[in-house]
């Protein structure tokens, strides 16, 4: 199946440094299928106009394309209505929106904000800023050896003082799936709101935000086949209703006088300025593409790749894998290190064999520090277009890294 899928991704069909290209960095950004590129071209060749602002055919069309994406996203993540879907440029903007609009307005001195030590900086630095500005306490949920937040942490850290809990569903470093349903329940039991970072889960598994009962959820289109420049903030209507706007400008207002402004209703209230309709067109196409494959199949493809990779890595005595090895507990991300070789050297050497992996601290410094690997890790991450040949190329490349740095002959 993935071999068939791969044909839809022209970028993968190239040689890098004289080798077959092996792309293993989909957790950073995914490649785009022809269908998505065509949706974007189609938009610009036939329908491009500023939406919401014109009473002419193309403007109606572009409004339709844009608003239809809201419906498509709503259905894809199980939101209740379109007002709950706000378009942003990426997950980072969504968290900053939450931090500025909710955090800065509803957090008071002495309140507590709880996140996990496994957060990406985009769900971490904004809360540090809120905590500092408001004199609140930023508390961390820690992980067990498998990389999973424990029941005790949930029970102990989330207290009556907690006002916001914001945690990642799937770690972008370890790929571990966190018990977010329990965390959300606990947050609600103490009267806190619960936000979730689904940037690394929504591209890889079926998500239902209503069933999870999250107050807000955040993700980026570019990590799920869509173009760069579009992301989503899901928020429960009652939450979004009480939040003031973030970006002020065109299209998010109702009336403006010289000294006063009344704001538009949801979702427009949070969408100031000309929106990325192209990105929306691409996102619709990306979701359709994923729906056609089926999220079950997406999961299965990744499961098989992860199982095989873990097995093969285990056979390499000089490799240490971090976090759980149980594929049921993790998504398509594996972090590891090669004994005696710095991750950056591993990446450079693999690159010379056409194998693209991500190394470093993955925008998650506190987690890497917690794991005791401040120099970072090597991370491979899979998506639907990866095949067993990619796993093979990775393993062969890893054997070579050792040779290049003087462990054994070249």
């Amino acid at each position, binding site marked *: 199946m993935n071999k068939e899928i791969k044909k839809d991704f022209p970028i993968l069909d190239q040689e890098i*440094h004289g080798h077959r290209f092996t792309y293993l960095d989909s957790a950073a950004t995914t490649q785009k299928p022809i269908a998505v590129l065509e949706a974007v071209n189609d938009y610009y060749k036939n329908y491009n106009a500023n939406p919401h602002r014109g009473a002419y055919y193309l403007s109606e069309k572009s409004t339709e394309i844009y608003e239809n994406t809201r419906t498509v996203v709503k259905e894809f993540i199980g939101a209740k209505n379109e007002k709950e879907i706000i378009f942003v440029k990426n997950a980072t903007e969504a968290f900053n929106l939450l931090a500025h609009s909710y955090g800065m307005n509803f957090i008071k001195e002495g309140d507590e904000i709880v996140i996990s030590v496994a957060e990406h900086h985009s769900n971490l630095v904004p809360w540090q800023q809120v905590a500092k500005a408001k004199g609140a306490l930023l508390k961390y949920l820690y992980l067990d050896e498998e990389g999973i937040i424990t029941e005790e942490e949930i029970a102990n850290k989330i207290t009556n003082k907690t006002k916001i809990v914001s945690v990642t569903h799937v770690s972008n470093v370890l790929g571990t799936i966190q018990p977010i349903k329990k965390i959300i329940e606990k947050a609600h039991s103490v009267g806190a709101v619960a936000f979730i970072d689904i940037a690394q889960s929504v591209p890889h598994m079926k998500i239902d935000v209503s069933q999870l009962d999250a107050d807000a959820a955040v993700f980026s289109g570019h990590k799920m086949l869509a173009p760069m420049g579009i992301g989503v903030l899901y928020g429960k209507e009652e939450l979004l209703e009480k939040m003031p706007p973030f970006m002020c400008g065109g299209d998010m207002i109702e009336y403006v006088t010289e000294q006063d402004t009344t704001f538009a209703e949801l979702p427009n209230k949070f969408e100031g300025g000309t929106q990325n309709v192209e990105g929306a067109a691409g996102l619709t196409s990306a979701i359709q593409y994923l729906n056609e494959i089926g999220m079950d199949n997406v999961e299965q493809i990744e499961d098989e790749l992860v199982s095989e990779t873990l097995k093969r890595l285990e056979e390499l005595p000089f490799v240490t894998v971090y976090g759980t090895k149980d594929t049921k507990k993790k998504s398509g991300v594996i972090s590891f290190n090669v004994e005696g*070789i*710095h*991750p*950056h*050297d591993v990446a*450079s*050497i693999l*690159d*010379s064999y056409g194998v693209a992996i991500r190394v*470093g*601290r993955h925008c998650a410094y506190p987690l890497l520090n917690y794991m005791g690997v*401040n*120099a*970072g890790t090597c991370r491979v991450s899979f998506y639907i277009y990866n095949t067993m040949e990619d796993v093979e190329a990775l393993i062969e490349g890893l054997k070579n890294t050792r040779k*290049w*740095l*003087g462990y054994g002959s070249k």
Partner: protein
Amino acid sequence: MDLNSIYTEVIAEHNMSNHNKHHIEGADFIEKGHNPSCGDEIELELRIKNGIVEDGGFTGVGCAISQASTSIMIDLIRGKSVEEAKELIETFLGMIKREIKDEKELEVLEDAIALKNISNMPARVKCAVLAWHTLEESLKKAV
């Protein structure tokens, strides 16, 4: 890309040997250098007497390129005058930026010539120059 032109034996040896990786007794100049984007961190220690770099060493963490570059640099400047060391920094940075291409002019860099092709790996240039910028900062204070 020709990996042979970057991960040379010189780099591999310096990376593994650790012969300059230690504190320097009586060091007069201790300078920290770091690359936030990749996490390389070194602390360069120098003992400078009468304008001569008597000895040098370093501690810290980093990739093979940054570690080897630091070690090679220390071998190179040991026993040289501060002025000579400054000129070597200039020549090294000139080589990396491809402003100095004349092989003859580069000869003074000895083993450091091994890093000449690092510009083929733009993401790794910072690793190669970290030590040299750190030395530059240190020597500013040595005047």
